[in-house]
């Protein structure tokens, strides 16, 4: 114990007055430590409750998202105004369709529907204008889908077209030949017969799908005129995109049609900008610093709702819709990448939602070939022109897309 105390005293006495110069980097290290503390203090005091008012349109976008979210998350035990609205629209459309359909078939209709098929027992004789004896017999075989016949105008005894008169004299065959020869339907008309409806253009609706490629050009500019002079696009060219979607047509009378649908479109582009002067401008609003050269790649994704009005032309199995109208679009995503300098040491990847609503105007002839009364295919070239610019006041850049789409698709008529 005593020896231990001696050792402690030895160190205590020997080192009590010991001084040593700190290393030369000591003060720098302390300074760095003070800086760290200062930095944390500044960051915490200045930024912890820093307020920035977001752009006004953010609430609009948020409202749309909340609307969609509420719409999609239907709770059966809660009244949902959106589903009620859809149900109302659906019921209204159904009623209108039913009334329209009924009205078109009650013209010339008498109140006594016949449930028998009427078959000529003799071949019509063009030289004999007397009434042909007829026999009413019950249906030989029940058809899969019962067909009701309504009495229209009295049957013509003979038909001016010889070929008709030589046909087998069943009602369906006769009707088919009558309509093929573009005659008036003056015989017994099967109710809701597709062939009759088709040739009378009573088929009001068609739905279809389509897909195609787009060939776009982007007119890209900086909002600041000085920057436009400073940077020159070295690589502005047409770019390919694609588009697909579903669409629905309705006839407005016999000559006009209306088309709408939901399309998904994706456009890609790439720019290479070279700066012509040595100074480096800073785009303050977006915190984007542009060095030279700048390679700018973007991919824009849209949802589109067209409202196209068209003129309907038809001959035999071919028809054409000459359409034009606005396409309302919502840009749902931007995927962007900016390589800001030759060393590639800064790159950015953006993805945004519901950034901007826009309108483009489109002109499109649509060429349709009908396989039968239900199915048809179409091919359409389409020219689109953006009415509004892509980035408005929020960004320092603005652009407008113009381009062509070539698409093919199918329709189902009903």
């Amino acid at each position: 114990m005593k020896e231990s105390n001696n050792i402690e005293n030895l160190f205590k006495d020997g080192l009590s007055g010991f001084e040593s110069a700190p290393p030369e980097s000591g003060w720098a290290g302390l300074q760095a430590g003070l800086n760290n503390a200062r930095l944390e203090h500044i960051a915490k005091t200045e930024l912890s409750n820093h307020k920035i008012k977001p752009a006004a349109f953010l609430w609009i976008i948020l409202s749309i998202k909340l609307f969609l979210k509420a719409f999609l998350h239907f709770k059966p035990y809660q009244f949902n105004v959106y589903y009620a609205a859809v149900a109302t629209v659906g019921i209204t459309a159904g009623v209108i369709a039913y009334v329209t359909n009924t009205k078109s078939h009650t013209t010339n209709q008498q109140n006594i529907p016949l449930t028998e098929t009427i078959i000529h027992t003799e071949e019509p004789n063009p030289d004999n204008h007397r009434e042909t004896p007829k026999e009413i017999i019950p249906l030989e075989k029940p058809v899969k889908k019962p067909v009701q016949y309504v009495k229209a105008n009295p049957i013509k005894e003979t038909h001016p077209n010889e070929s008709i008169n030589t046909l087998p004299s069943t009602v369906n065959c006769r009707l088919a030949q009558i309509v093929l020869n573009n005659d008036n339907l003056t015989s017994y008309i099967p109710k809701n017969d597709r062939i009759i409806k088709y040739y009378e253009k009573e088929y009001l609706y068609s739905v279809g799908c389509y897909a195609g490629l787009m060939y776009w050009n982007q007119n890209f500019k900086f909002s600041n005129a000085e920057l436009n002079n400073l940077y020159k696009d070295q690589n502005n060219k047409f770019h390919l995109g694609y588009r697909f979607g579903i669409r629905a047509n309705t006839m407005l009378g016999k000559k006009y049609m209306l088309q709408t649908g939901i399309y998904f479109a994706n456009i890609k582009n790439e720019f290479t900008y070279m700066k012509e002067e040595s100074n480096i401008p800073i785009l303050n609003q977006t915190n984007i610093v542009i060095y030279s050269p700048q390679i700018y790649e973007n991919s824009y994704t849209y949802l589109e709702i067209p409202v196209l009005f068209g003129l309907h032309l038809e001959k035999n199995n071919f028809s054409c819709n000459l359409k034009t109208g606005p396409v309302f679009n919502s840009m749902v995503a931007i995927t962007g990448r900016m390589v800001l300098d030759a060393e590639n040491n800064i790159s950015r990847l953006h993805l945004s939602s519901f950034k901007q609503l826009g309108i483009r105007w489109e002109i499109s002839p649509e060429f349709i070939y009908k396989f039968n009364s239900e199915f048809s295919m179409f091919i359409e070239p389409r020219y689109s022109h953006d009415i509004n610019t892509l980035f408005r006041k929020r960004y320092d850049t603005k652009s407008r897309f113009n381009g062509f789409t070539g698409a093919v698709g199918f329709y189902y008529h009903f």
Partner: protein
Amino acid sequence: MSDELDQIIIGCKEQKRKAQKKLYNRYSPILYGMAMRYASCSSEADDMLQEAFINIFGNIEQYKGHGSFEGWMKRILVNAAIGYIRKYKKQSNENFDDIKETDIDSTGFEDMDFTKEELMSAINELPDGFRIVFNMYAIEGYKHKEIAEILDIQIGTSKSQYSRARQILMQKLIELKKVHSK
């Protein structure tokens, strides 16, 4: 908690749009200020803010009135920001290994006043990982252990990223100071 805020929260729990808008108007500036710190540009901050508010309105029933409502919303925003960066920014380049202590000018800047915009710009230019850790540790007050758990990284990684973020920030601020002194 004020009665007005209570009413707003009750309205939001009933998914009333007017109450949601009131809440948005009241808290969006401070949350957007936070989002700007986690984002590298305003468009990212827009998305983070929207995501945060959708989560706030979607989960507001889980808020039982214990603790600060503002703090609860801030945590949601931090989570939204982290989720956003994880989801969309995996390609970001964070190769800053070549920065060493010796590169940092040891000149002090305690006598300098930086504007909030300058500080914000300096933070925005940090790589994503560094920016998140710096924000969480230096400004929000999370511990490294908490950060490691939230981000699913090692505590050591959190510390080293914070250290490097601090170095880069100091370098940027010192450069700013030189610009000021000119």
